[in-house]
């Protein structure tokens, strides 16, 4: 009997491909509304969305450490704040790197946060790939060097933050107040908000920073929301709630052994300006040679942007947002 080798390979290749399918339980949980959808955007997961969750945790977690009175912590508070760079990766329940941020503290007391779209088409470990594939396929060391190569920044440390931390953190501070210019809803993000002042709880906070549909300016509005949410959350930090805060973030954050959490915390706590930006990109619908859609970036432009970010003017304080 003649067996067509190509057809057999095709069958096996499809079977192998199908076996890579996502966990059905996660999809069912999303459908049943147990938690907001991981990502609705099919191609461009613009950074500042869920990415932002990581920023929240980055800022809040060190502040929690700084104010805690754990003896071991006290011994090291004398460490002078020195400029440093930390790669912060936000992961979902399936360890997908949904958000990738480069946080830098500068000697002049400013902090800059660069978000990198997860579908950015980058060089990692000698091959081109989507940024969100690097951690899961090659690990943190490769991701650190890939981000370093792309941004021109020597990445010194890393932290991995579980996205679920934002919801619990919001609840732990007793809700985060925000103001909306108009009522809005987005069934995909689980969002349904009235106009005006309101206090977000954990679930609605996640919907608030994830909502993309039903907003006049889509992703741009979402970035503004993320910034407003972060400011408001930081304003809610309060020494009396620290035990609850520590409890809420425990187990949600991992860092490299060399990261001086307290030194980093001190630099963040002392920083007077916060610069947040997403790297520039060329074609957001770039058909990559491997058949996936990716976000095309120009490393030269990215490096220029990253270098300039600490010198830009921070956005004016926003009251009510879309």
């Amino acid at each position, binding site marked *: 009997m003649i067996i067509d080798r190509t057809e057999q390979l095709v069958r096996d*290749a499809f079977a192998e491909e199908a076996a890579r399918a*996502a966990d059905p339980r996660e999809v069912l949980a999303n*459908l049943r509304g147990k938690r907001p959808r991981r990502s609705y955007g*099919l191609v461009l997961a613009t950074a500042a969305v869920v990415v932002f969750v990581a920023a929240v945790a980055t800022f809040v977690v060190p502040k929690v450490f700084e104010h805690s009175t754990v003896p071991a912590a006290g011994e090291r508070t004398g460490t002078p704040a020195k400029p440093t760079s930390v790669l912060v990766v936000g992961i979902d329940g399936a360890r997908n790197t949904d958000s990738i941020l480069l946080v830098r503290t500068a000697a002049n007391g400013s902090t800059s946060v660069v978000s990198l779209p997860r579908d950015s088409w980058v060089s990692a470990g000698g091959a081109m790939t989507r940024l969100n594939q690097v951690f899961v396929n090659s690990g943190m060391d490769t991701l650190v060097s890939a981000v370093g190569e792309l941004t021109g920044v020597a990445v010194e440390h890393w932290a991995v933050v579980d996205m679920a931390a934002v919801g619990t953190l919001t609840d732990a501070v007793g809700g985060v107040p925000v103001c909306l210019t108009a009522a809005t809803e987005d*069934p995909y993000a689980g969002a349904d908000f009235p106009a005006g002042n309101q206090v977000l709880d954990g679930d609605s906070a996640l919907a608030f920073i994830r909502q993309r549909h039903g907003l006049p300016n889509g992703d741009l509005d979402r970035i503004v929301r993320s910034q407003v949410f972060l400011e408001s959350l930081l304003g809610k930090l309060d020494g009396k709630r620290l035990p609850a805060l520590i409890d809420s973030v425990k187990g949600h954050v991992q860092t490299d052994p060399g990261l001086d959490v307290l030194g980093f915390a001190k630099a963040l706590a002392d920083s007077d300006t916060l610069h947040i930006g997403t790297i520039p990109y060329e074609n957001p619908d770039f058909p990559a040679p491997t058949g996936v859609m990716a976000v095309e970036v120009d490393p030269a432009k990215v490096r220029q942007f990253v270098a300039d970010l600490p010198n830009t003017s921070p956005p004016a304080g926003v009251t009510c947002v879309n």
Partner: protein
Amino acid sequence: MLDTFDQFAVDRIDRLLRFATALTCDPHLAQDVVQDVLVRVQHRWARIGPMPGRDQYVRRMIINEYLSWRRRKAARTVAATHSTLDALGTPTADPAGYVTERDAMRRNIARLPRKQRAALMLRFYADRDDAEIAELLGCSEGTVRSHISRALSALRATHQHPVREAL
């Protein structure tokens, strides 16, 4: 008795995800596509639930969601490079290893034009005949045969290439 949407989803989710993953060659995209389609099915369950051919209908929704997504993206993409040509020149690292060959085949399938890939998937993964594939893709049987034959020729040319290199 009419089953609930939840029961329907629980029974089919695994197969639908595999189907969509084979179709898109991208587990994340497949998950998004399946979720989007099932959200729509859920909203219209009163109508879709009692349909005799609802499984076929849902698969067709998945294919359409994927094909139309690609179409929308393609419409905004100017002068995409023809990556298939580049792929043709890429020899596999180890032509003797079947697993290596199969993985190379996976990558080559991922580079096929979307409709060819969909037709090929329906034939060799879902085991559908020309008529069923034509219905799912909304085209004629002749077109289905042409998609599959072109796809197979391209794949043959690609995976035989490293063998010639080796000789």
